[in-house]
């Protein structure tokens, strides 16, 4: 039997803040994607490709987050029963979980693709994992399992980033980049927990939003500066 999506995801508390937050992240991500377009078209460099795809997936993920809220506002929350809230909730939640997981995997892959011997199998594996995460989020109604899963994912990300940092050519420059990436992953997980377990981080929601925006803006600033856009 299909479980109801978390009610917090379906009926957001602060619709205005959520809309603005998602909108800012979408704009930042799309600007990063757009700013790196020429560099990729000229070089066809795989690292740039995965980096761009990561931010495209971030934009798609937050679109799904934004999309459900936009629908609720646009069609009026009181009339929600008229257009199957479970279906809309599941569609948006699975879209968000899949896309944001893919974004994280692509960002990791962009720094590890040379060491992991680039192959299609890895991309298939990422897709499979992202689908599994989305399915677990929807069908397993046990928040404990979901928290443990996110913890395992965070440890894996930490492990990969430490390896990447050790192989980094410029340790000083690499340090700040990997700290930004690590924070980005931490806040992604906090964002997912905020959706899956609405009251778990309620007090810190605004802080999570502000830090997430700050991180995306930092990456955007670095991209615009280095890409000459």
């Amino acid at each position, binding site marked *: 039997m299909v479980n109801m999506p978390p009610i917090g995801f379906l009926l957001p508390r602060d619709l205005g803040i959520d809309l603005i937050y998602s909108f800012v992240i979408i704009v930042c991500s799309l600007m990063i994607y757009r700013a*790196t377009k*020429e*560099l990729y*078209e*000229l*070089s*066809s*460099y795989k*690292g*740039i490709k*995965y*980096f761009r795809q990561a931010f495209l997936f971030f934009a798609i993920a937050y679109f799904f987050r934004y999309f459900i809220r936009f629908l609720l506002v646009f069609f009026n929350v009181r009339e929600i029963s008229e257009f199957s809230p479970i279906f809309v909730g599941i569609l948006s939640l699975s879209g968000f979980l899949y896309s944001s997981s893919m974004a994280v995997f692509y960002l990791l892959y*962009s*720094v590890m693709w040379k060491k992991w011997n680039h192959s299609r199998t890895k991309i298939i594996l990422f897709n499979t994992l992202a689908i599994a995460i989305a399915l677990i989020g929807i069908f397993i109604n046990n928040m404990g399992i979901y928290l443990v899963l996110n913890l395992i994912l965070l440890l894996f990300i930490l492990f990969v980033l430490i390896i*990447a940092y050790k192989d*980094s*050519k*410029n340790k000083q*420059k*690499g340090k700040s*980049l*990997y700290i930004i990436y690590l924070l980005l992953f931490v806040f992604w997980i906090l964002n997912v927990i905020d959706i899956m377990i609405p009251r778990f981080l309620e007090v810190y929601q605004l802080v999570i939003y502000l830090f997430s925006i700050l991180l995306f803006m930092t990456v955007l600033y*670095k*991209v615009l500066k*280095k*890409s*000459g856009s």
Partner: protein
Amino acid sequence: MVKRGKLEIMRDVIQIIKRNKNHIKPTPLLRKANISSARFKAYCSELVDRALIKEIIEGKNRKYIILTEKGFRFLEKYKTIINFIDEFEL
């Protein structure tokens, strides 16, 4: 001697063409590029596929290699591309 990366070899090939007034035959290009014939063929075909260079026939079936606009742009942006890759450890 440090081994050249793929992007660096591509930059070298494109730069040689530009320095020869954007007009060079494949054989002198191969000699100046300082890579094996097999790799040269592979690189040339990739550069053609990506529309960075173009092969033209002039006179009595004489093949020349020239840069496209995208090829010139690649040279202009090469440093930016490398800096970007270094900055984000890609």
